[in-house]
């Protein structure tokens, strides 16, 4: 057990704070929702009811989709684009998917390589891009979830304000849907840009996200 905690501390920590943040979001979101219900002549709801509501679902989904979009783009673009001096980047001149020898695929896979890395055909092709595919798929599914839950929440608000509801097609072309999406995207892109640039000039001793403290600013693709 101790070894499990030690070997998986990073993911366990972030799963824990994810749960705590969701609990906090649920409570604060319930208070906001019930306040709106009072002013619009509706009924206040319990926490259990709110957790199953479209309002809570869209508030979660709109954030999740942007996180996975961020990682999908980050994973994919770092194959082809560089940032000189950043530990987040490959070295200039090393862009692209690299050779089989460098990636230890096909005949260059060893006994410790994942099985599909050694396979020929679609298995190797899919596994070679599985991280980006997974992030991209989760992004698409969570964005779809945002559109569906957002449609229900938006139309409930429309009816509370004595206005007609809209269709799904009308909602995904609406200002509400794109405002929710874009406000999340801008912050994700800012975070990645900040990380790529600040890591050139600043250090965090001991973190693999940082270059070693004494490394020069020009050193690229080196982690601490």
């Amino acid at each position, binding site marked *: 057990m101790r070894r499990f905690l030690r070997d998986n501390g990073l993911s366990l920590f972030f799963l824990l704070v994810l749960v705590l943040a969701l609990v906090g979001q649920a409570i604060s979101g319930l208070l906001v929702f019930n306040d709106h219900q009072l002013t619009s*002549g*509706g*009924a206040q709801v319990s926490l259990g009811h709110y957790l199953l509501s479209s309002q809570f679902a869209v508030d979660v989904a709109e954030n999740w989709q942007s996180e996975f979009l961020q990682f999908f783009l980050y994973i994919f673009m770092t194959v082809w684009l560089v940032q000189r001096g950043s530990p987040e980047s490959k070295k200039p001149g090393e862009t692209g998917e690299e050779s089989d020898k460098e990636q230890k695929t096909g005949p260059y896979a060893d006994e410790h390589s994942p099985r599909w890395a050694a396979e020929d055909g679609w298995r190797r092709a899919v596994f070679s891009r599985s991280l980006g595919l997974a992030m991209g798929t989760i992004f698409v599914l969570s964005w779809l979830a945002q559109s569906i839950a957002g449609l229900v929440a938006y139309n409930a608000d429309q*009816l509370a304000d*004595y*206005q007609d509801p809209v269709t799904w097609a009308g909602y995904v072309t609406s200002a509400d849907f794109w405002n929710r999406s874009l406000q999340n995207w801008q912050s994700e892109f800012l975070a990645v840009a900040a990380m790529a640039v600040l890591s050139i000039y600043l250090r965090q001793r001991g973190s693999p996200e940082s270059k070693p403290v004494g490394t020069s600013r020009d050193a690229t693709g080196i982690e601490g």
Partner: protein
Amino acid sequence: MHKWKRQVAALVPVAVVFGATACGSNAEGPDVRRVTTGFFAATTAHQGTAACRALAPQAADGLASGGSTCAKEIDKLDLTGGRIRSVRVWGDRAQAVLSGDTVFLARFRHGWRITAAGCRPQGQYPYQCEVEA
């Protein structure tokens, strides 16, 4: 069970939840119709007290003002409704469009109640209603 079948099976409850939210709870439609029909049956028969029972608390309170009661005020409005053309339910809110009126409803612990009645469309603006919460 093959791994991929377990993964697909895990998505089924997710699809059900999203399907239910996307469809806007069509299961609530009959209850909305019943409340709407009962409301206009009461207003047409000038049974103000029964009509007010179908209203949301804030809507009923809004009518009862200046020493008058909800029942008296709602009788003055002469709401007739007509035939229900459509019912749309989204979350805890609903709209019933009738041949002679449009009403908006909200779901409370004890069932659906009307939050606005005697509503007329105003283009891109909110409906203008004679009874509002």
